[in-house]
């Protein structure tokens, strides 16, 4: 009743009406927000947070600053040319005395050992031995503990890590490093690996994507055109691989493809080959297994696009005098491009992150970027490198996605999609 009276009372002035409308809309908006909130929170926790952590770890560099706070503070204003002055040595001695026996010092030693092998013992030994006798200069005491502190490069390495952020990991993930003079240089030839690995990851993903699409296309076409009774059965067979774990399937491929496996025994038994073929622990084996696992991801988008293409398009093309293959190529194929784009992108992005399959079915020459991420996480506990490699991989994937959306993006897809 009151509401009604209000409306009547304020109707002539339009402002209160607008306010009411806004209030009503705000409630609707809040309802919508409430509905998507669980998903938004879920995504934030499971997706944005880890990615944020990943990016953070790839530049995070706290170890040396935490272990040697005074020294790093002074080193930030050091010219990085001649040996630092007594004040720095004194601060270093105080820091070491405070950090002795503290895991933070080991963390700093581990971090500095990445800059130069041997730095770990240099720092840890100094930490153990250093005693500044009365009347002795700190510099003399430090040099007495380990003579390597007389080298400028030791201090340059410390200075490079005197800030809480570093480009070290990201540069290393691109086969570059910061030289003693502060310039960015290419890593030693016998230490370079990641650019090649990244290119290999891209290349292998491209090959897997192309093979998957080539195999998926006719299959999806068959599924989309045969009566639904048979296509349902076939679809179940396509999806069957999803119901077994990747590990089981990889193990099965090893059994099938190995030298003494059934395929090789059959080939030798039938006299097709004299020696067993090397089908596994090389790139062929990796391709076979990856295509097998990823094929459904290519089939499904293609199938859904093909299902939506009326058969009358190709009929129309044929009736207009175009031979069957030309009709396919000029009419059907362009209409399936959104499916090819979506399926290809899906397979490609999944391939980029492949780890288990190349690790188990390939030789070291087949390892992709994720293998080294796992290597750094599990074996050397070097999260900085793992995060940097992941960041580079993520960036490469994003760049490719942007290129994809240029060519297959919403605007084009809308134009091509059949009505």
């Amino acid at each position: 009743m009151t509401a009604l009276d209000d409306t009547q009372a304020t109707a002539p002035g339009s402002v209160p009406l607008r306010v009411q409308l806004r209030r009503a809309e705000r409630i609707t908006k809040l309802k919508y927000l409430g509905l998507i909130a669980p998903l938004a929170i879920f995504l934030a926790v499971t997706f944005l947070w880890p990615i944020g952590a990943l990016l953070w770890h790839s530049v995070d560099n706290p170890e040396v600053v935490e272990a040697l706070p005074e020294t790093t503070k002074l080193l930030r204003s050091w010219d990085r040319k001649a040996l630092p002055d007594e004040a720095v040595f004194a601060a270093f001695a105080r820091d070491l005395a405070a950090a002795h026996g503290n895991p933070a010092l080991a963390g700093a030693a581990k971090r500095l050992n990445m800059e130069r092998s041997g730095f770990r013992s240099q720092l840890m030994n100094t930490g153990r031995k250093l005693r500044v006798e009365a009347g002795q200069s700190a510099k003399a005491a430090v040099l007495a503990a380990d003579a390597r502190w007389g080298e400028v490069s030791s201090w340059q390495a410390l200075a490079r890590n005197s800030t809480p952020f570093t480009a070290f990991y990201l540069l290393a993930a691109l086969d570059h490093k910061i030289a003693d003079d502060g310039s960015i240089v290419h890593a030693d030839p016998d230490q370079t690996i990641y650019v090649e690995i990244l290119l290999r990851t891209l290349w292998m993903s491209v090959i897997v994507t192309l093979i998957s699409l080539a195999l998926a296309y006719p299959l999806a076409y068959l599924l989309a055109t045969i009566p639904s009774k048979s296509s349902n059965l076939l679809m179940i067979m396509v999806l069957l691989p999803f119901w077994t774990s990747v590990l089981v399937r990889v193990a099965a491929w090893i059994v099938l493809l190995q030298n003494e496996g059934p395929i090789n025994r059959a080939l030798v038994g039938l006299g097709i080959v004299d020696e067993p073929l090397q089908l596994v622990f090389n790139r062929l084996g990796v391709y076979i297994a990856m295509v097998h696992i990823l094929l459904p991801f290519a089939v499904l988008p293609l199938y859904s696009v093909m299902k939506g293409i009326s058969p009358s398009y190709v009929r129309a093309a044929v009736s207009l005098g175009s031979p069957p293959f030309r009709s396919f190529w000029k009419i059907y194929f362009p209409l399936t491009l959104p499916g090819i784009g979506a399926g290809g992108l899906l397979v490609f992005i999944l391939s980029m992150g492949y780890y288990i399959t190349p690790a188990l079915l390939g030789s070291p020459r087949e390892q992709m970027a994720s293998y080294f991420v796992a290597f750094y996480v599990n074996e050397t506990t070097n999260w900085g490198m793992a995060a940097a490699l992941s960041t580079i991989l993520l960036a490469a994937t994003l760049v490719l996605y942007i290129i994809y959306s240029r060519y297959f993006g919403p605007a084009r897809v809308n134009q091509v999609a059949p009505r």
Partner: protein
Amino acid sequence: MGQDAGDGLISFRGVQKTYDGEILIVRDLNLEVRRGEFVTLLGPSGSGKTTCLMMLAGFETPTAGEIRLGGRVINKVPPHQRNMGMVFQNYALFPHMTVAENLAFPLAARKLAKPDITEKVARALAMVRMEAFATRFPQQLSGGQQQRIALARALVFNPEVVLMDEPLGALDKQLREHMQLEIKHIHESLGVTVVFVTHDQGEALTMSNRIAVFNHGIIQQCDVPSQLYEEPANAFVASFIGENNALAGTVESAGDGLCQVRLADGSAILARQGDAGGPGSAATVSIRPERVELDDAVAGDPNRLPAAVREMIYLGDHVRVRMEVAGNTNFVAKVPISHVSPAMTVGAAMTVGLPAAHLRAFASP
């Protein structure tokens, strides 16, 4: 271009089609289409008319019989070599091509030179008055515009035959009637042979030179529109085309193209012999509502029946009178407004006259 029977262009001879080996979708098709003719295949859905069109286009193969084009058997000629333009129900305009590209498609398939293509496309667009839309994509056009483009595309390469599969089904009534005339005019000006499939009898009557009425996989009757309406061959054609009153009865005697039918209420009437059988067989007599005569006019007619008026609907130029006649409560007469008398009121008893010239006895379906 002559119109004599010798100028047959398309010919179906004893054509049968089955998909499952059991049910014949097309049972025994015999049809001749003359050059330049507009023939409509008319029938309810599932009657086999679309299958016939698809066999003619080459998308389906006849199970038995042969199809000839210009005297040559084309059963085994692939569809892209038949040189027939086709307009589909949903137009099937290629969504990834502009209007001009759609029209150029059949010409490019025939490897015409670029300038030729450009010229022919322009001419075809002019024919359907769509010159301004050459660079649009199909989705940017209205239904009627898409329909015009589909028509232009089927005609742009000057095919001998144009096939149309319910092309106007998706349009609203007004647009549909407009397009019917437009297609009819294009046909008349180009002289192209058209085989048109529809389930809409009005559409068929408007456009066709001849109509083949399909039911249950068989052509029930094939004739010019006026003959189909005035001289239906059987009860199906009579009821499928136009409005019709049917009264059930039994044949008592027959001869000289006439027969005597005893109706359910015991009265006997004289009708022209349709496909009704000899004495004793069940028959349906049928008459168009506009041929029914009332009271004053019936005096001299031997076929007179009592009727009770149930409903009167005023329709401006005429009145539809629904009556009960010989047990049929849906017996309709169309009375011109000038013949309406004050005695005609709901509940009034009247006498209807059924002139034997317009009354046909058909075998009961």
